[in-house]
């Protein structure tokens, strides 16, 4: 089901606004992640979609239908909570059957459906256990099965993987992707882990301080960040950021002076600093001094000193020693300029 927010704002206490004028459309059948730092309003957004929380102003649409005034009972979405919220007094089977029981589905049918779902999430061998005796990953699968039980047209997941260890996390996010693709249910997935969002979703909505920073595909977020926040939030290792005062001289002649005047910050992705000349792709050459150089596995990180500022690159091919001078070739792709509001004014596909 397509979900649309029209100018939705929310304040819990009537004075401090948590979410400011959200406008977005989530297309039917896609998996969208809401990504942002802790406290930016991700759970709050999800609660408003589910109907557990009413917006202070604005409208919410499911397809063409205005559901703003409907409560959670009427909206019939499926939801997995941050801490799973399984019913502790019911065993796995009864937990999955609960939404069906509420919908007055006859018992034999309920059971059949629940077992089907248990198989889908691979917990069919745990049906008699109470949630308390399940591992985090198993609980999460039960929660997903329960959320899918009434065949919602919309599935909401609030940081469902945050309690799992690294390996299980990767396994489960593939699992969620598989289930989503098998069932075709429109899914909204909340996370503060960019890696998770990048791997699982069709589109990512980056949220910060209650405002949508950018809503696009993972590649677009990385290649064309619309502002400094997104550029810094997406990407590992983090983008190098310098004040224009520290870097402007290198760019004179290469970039329009009017543009440089408006520039406040310079963003350079670690892979945009190459140790060899790439010809037309090279924007400028800078001289740096090696501070530290680390190699583990396939990863190579060189921390460099540039006029007293720190720069990080991942692209060193040659053997280098700490303390030596090193010329670096600044690449066009992965190089951005941001104005005083943080908006990107140079770099990305527009200037490729």
């Amino acid at each position, binding site marked *: 089901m397509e979900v649309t927010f029209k100018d939705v704002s929310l304040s819990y206490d009537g004075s401090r606004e948590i979410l400011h004028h959200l406008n977005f459309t989530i297309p039917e059948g896609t998996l969208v992640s809401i990504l942002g730092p802790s406290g930016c309003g991700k759970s709050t957004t999800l*609660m408003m979609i589910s109907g557990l929380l009413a917006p202070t102003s604005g409208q919410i649409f499911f397809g063409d239908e205005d559901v703003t005034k409907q409560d959670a009972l009427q909206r019939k979405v499926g939801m997995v909570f941050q801490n799973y*919220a399984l*019913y502790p007094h019911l065993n796995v089977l009864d937990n999955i059957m609960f939404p069906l029981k509420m919908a007055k589905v006859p018992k034999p049918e309920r059971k059949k459906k629940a077992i089907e779902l248990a198989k889908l999430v691979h917990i069919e061998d745990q049906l008699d256990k109470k949630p308390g005796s399940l591992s985090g990953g198993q609980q999460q699968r039960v929660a997903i099965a329960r959320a899918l039980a009434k065949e919602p047209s919309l599935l909401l997941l609030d940081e469902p993987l945050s309690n799992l260890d690294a390996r299980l996390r990767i396994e489960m996010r593939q699992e969620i992707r598989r289930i989503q693709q098998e069932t075709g249910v429109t899914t909204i997935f909340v996370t503060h882990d960019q890696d998770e969002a990048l791997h699982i979703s069709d589109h990512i909505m980056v949220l910060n301080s209650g405002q949508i920073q950018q809503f696009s595909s993972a590649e677009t977020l990385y290649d064309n960040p619309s502002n400094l926040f997104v550029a810094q939030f997406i990407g590992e290792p983090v983008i190098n950021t310098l004040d224009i005062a520290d870097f402007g001289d290198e760019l004179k002649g290469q970039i329009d002076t009017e543009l440089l005047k408006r520039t406040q910050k310079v963003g350079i992705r670690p892979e945009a600093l190459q140790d060899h000349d790439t010809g037309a792709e090279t924007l400028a050459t800078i001289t740096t001094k090696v501070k530290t150089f680390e190699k583990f596995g396939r990863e190579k990180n060189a921390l460099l000193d540039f006029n007293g500022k720190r720069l990080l690159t991942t692209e060193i091919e040659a053997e280098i020693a700490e303390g030596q001078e090193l010329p670096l070739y600044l690449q066009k792709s992965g190089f951005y300029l941001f104005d005083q509001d943080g908006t990107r004014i140079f770099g990305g596909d527009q200037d490729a």
Partner: protein
Amino acid sequence: MKRKTAIILRYVILILGAIIMLMPFLWMISTSLKTQPETVKIPPIWIPKHLMFSNYVDALKEAPFFRYFINSVVVTSLTTVGQLFTSILAAFAFSRLNFYGKNILFVIFLGTMMVPGEMLIIPNFVTLSQLHLVNTYGALIIPWLASFFTVFTLRQTFQSVPDQIYYAAKIDGASDWHYLWHVLVPISKSTITAVTVLQVIGSWNAFMWPLIVTNTENLRTLPVGLQAFTSDAGTNYALLMAASTFVIIPMVVLYVFLQKYIIAGISKTGLKG
């Protein structure tokens, strides 16, 4: 060595405590098996010469105990079920719903818990007599259909259930009513069992109130019925104790079977019975 003494000491104290607690019961059983003269013998004797099991038969013949027993069962079950029902609803309202004056109302109710029960006897009696309910089953039951102690205990438990469980139930299509009966009540099973048992025991053993509001034999409950052994000529302790033994047996059985829940329920809420 030091630890061993500590353990021994602990057990000695516990055993002494248990003996003190059991003493009245043992005395009751012992007396119920004595002959009439033996009951008033000084120094008192613990083990009668002949065990007078016939006292039990005689005691039951003394008064219509079967009728009293039925009355006790009816009154106890109706007050318990009724009180539980009203308390569960009230506790849900206080823990989950938002309504005007909720906190003030709660504080006022909390205040009523400080009023000793004996003080309520006269106002309650007056109210009932104006409703023409004195000397009816209604008098035995209606005043006990609400108990703030039970409301308070349940509210504490209900509040310890995380919000997200409530939200999950909402998402799963449960109305407040369904959430209450399908989720909240089963989750709070141990507390509910504890307050139920406390209420059953309280109601079963109630003496003062039934004595005051009833005066026909048909309405007597067991504790009131035990008066049958007291007359102007004195008290027949042997028969009284035999009958008393009958009266408390159901409660002892109940407690033995449910003690796990009772202890869990009471220690969870931080209240004692």
